[in-house]
């Protein structure tokens, strides 16, 4: 020990401090790759998300509370929120066609459930799938606030107020970490309505 000397002790101590300190910096955010654990903790309003992701030889563990203080979509008396566990709602919304896409960065599938008038996309976390997006396909459905495809831009502002992001062809309303997006055509009519998770 004496031979290793004070220098070695100082260097090793620095190393230990560097490595241990690394995981604590930032605001509860840590992302890792390759057989590695990542955890992200986000608290927005009443929404709390705690995600653990491992990339490479993947293992994931997720705890999500979705819905509170978010825009939701109701169909067949079921209200759907992004970041909610998809398994609890996909069968209750009617008949759907199914598509899945494997990821090149982690073991898991992005899934797409296409219903007659809307689509639900999911992302994997651990052994569960969570809703990443709800996308309207036609004007046969409306949001709980009464917005539909084909509606004028001004009507959307009447119903939802001033958007968080306002562009010629896009209004974004952020709430509880999620985004409700209205896409307009060149004449100012809604051509798409999307509920998007903050994770995509």
């Amino acid at each position, binding site marked *: 020990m004496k*031979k*290793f*000397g004070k*220098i*070695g002790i100082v*260097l*090793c101590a620095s*190393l230990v401090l*560097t*490595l241990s300190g*690394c*995981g604590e910096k*930032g605001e509860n*955010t*840590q*992302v*890792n*790759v*390759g*057989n*590695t*654990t990542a955890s992200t903790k986000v608290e927005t309003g009443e929404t709390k998300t705690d995600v653990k992701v*491992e*990339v*490479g*030889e*993947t293992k994931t563990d997720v705890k999500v509370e979705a819905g509170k203080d978010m825009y939701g979509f109701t169909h067949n008396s079921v209200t759907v929120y992004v970041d909610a566990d998809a398994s609890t709602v996909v069968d209750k919304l009617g008949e759907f*066609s*199914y*598509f*899945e*896409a*494997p*990821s*090149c*960065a*982690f*073991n898991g599938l992005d899934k*797409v459930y*296409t219903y007659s008038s809307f*689509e639900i996309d999911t992302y994997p976390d651990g052994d569960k799938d969570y809703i990443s997006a709800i*996308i309207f396909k036609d004007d046969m459905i409306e949001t709980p606030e009464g917005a539909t495809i084909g509606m004028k831009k001004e009507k959307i502002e009447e119903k939802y107020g001033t958007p968080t992001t306002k*562009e010629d*062809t*896009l209004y974004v309303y952020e709430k509880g970490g999620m985004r409700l*997006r209205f*896409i*307009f055509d060149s004449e100012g009519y809604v*051509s*798409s309505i*999307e509920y998007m998770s903050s*994770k*995509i």
Partner: protein
Amino acid sequence: MKKAIKWVATVLVVVLILFLLQRLLMPKYAKGIVEGAFIAEYYKDESEHDVIFLGDCEVYENFTPVMLWEDYGINSYIRGSSQQTVWQSYYLLEDTLRYETPDVVIFNVLAMEFNVPKDGGVNMEAYNRMTLEGMKWSGAKVRDIKASMVDGESFIDYVFPILRYHSRITELTADDFAYMFKTEKVSHNGYYLRVDSKPALNVPKGRILADYNFGKNAYAYLDKMTALCKEKGIRLILIKAPSLYPYWYPEWDKQMQEYAEKNNLEYINFLDLTDETKVDYNTDTYDAGLHLNLWGAQKITKWLGDYLTASGLSDRRNEEKLSKAWEEKIRFYESAIEAEKEKYGIE
């Protein structure tokens, strides 16, 4: 003097320990998600390539360099990686030119959908690591890292990956020790081989976008790629691989057609060539239309081999040293095909 030696020895021991720890903790990509190993494998292939492919999974899962060699005598390599962005493709081109100047560079334009790193989504950091860590250190790598980093990433973590991966210490597996210093080859000149099939059913159409124009940053890097190829006398071919998903919008296709025309480049959209290539999306894809399996890749590669040969690339199978090198690769490829067939119960 003795004190100085002690200092040096101590520093060396600590550096050695850190080095070994870093080797142990870094992901090996030897099994499972092997795509993370592709970029580094290029440096082991020392031959001069006629063709270099750049791009995302749509290049490394749709074209087979072994077939280009066996049937056409074209020596090619795929410098592809998962969700490779256009700036990463550009810097990989810069990096490649440190070692060789190919006759042809083929770039898959799906990457144009991302204008800035955050467009790649929440997993972008993982994708960045899979592309950037495999690159050898150079100015190109430094610039690539700087262009690629998303919020929460820092350059120092790329210089000393141990800072990034230290938490893996509690999750190490036997593979981390087995592949600490040397990993086995997992690609076939950058090609990812699959023989199983899954028909392309219910492929979703693209969702409506607020803006179909590719971004300024994406175009800036495509311009740089075009300029660099022109400067080096390289024939740049833009392609859209025949993957059905993610959706390739007609508006995007038009922009690439116009770009190619304006810059006097070739642009091949394989989605429009299904009648010629005879790709059957019921049998030639292993994941319902995202990527082709070997049988699909062979069809596309045949079309490309015919096209490249007709447009002037010469057959190099008479080069003894190169042929010898390929003999070994072909053996590895054939054994991998047999292993895959056995895995999926295919005769």
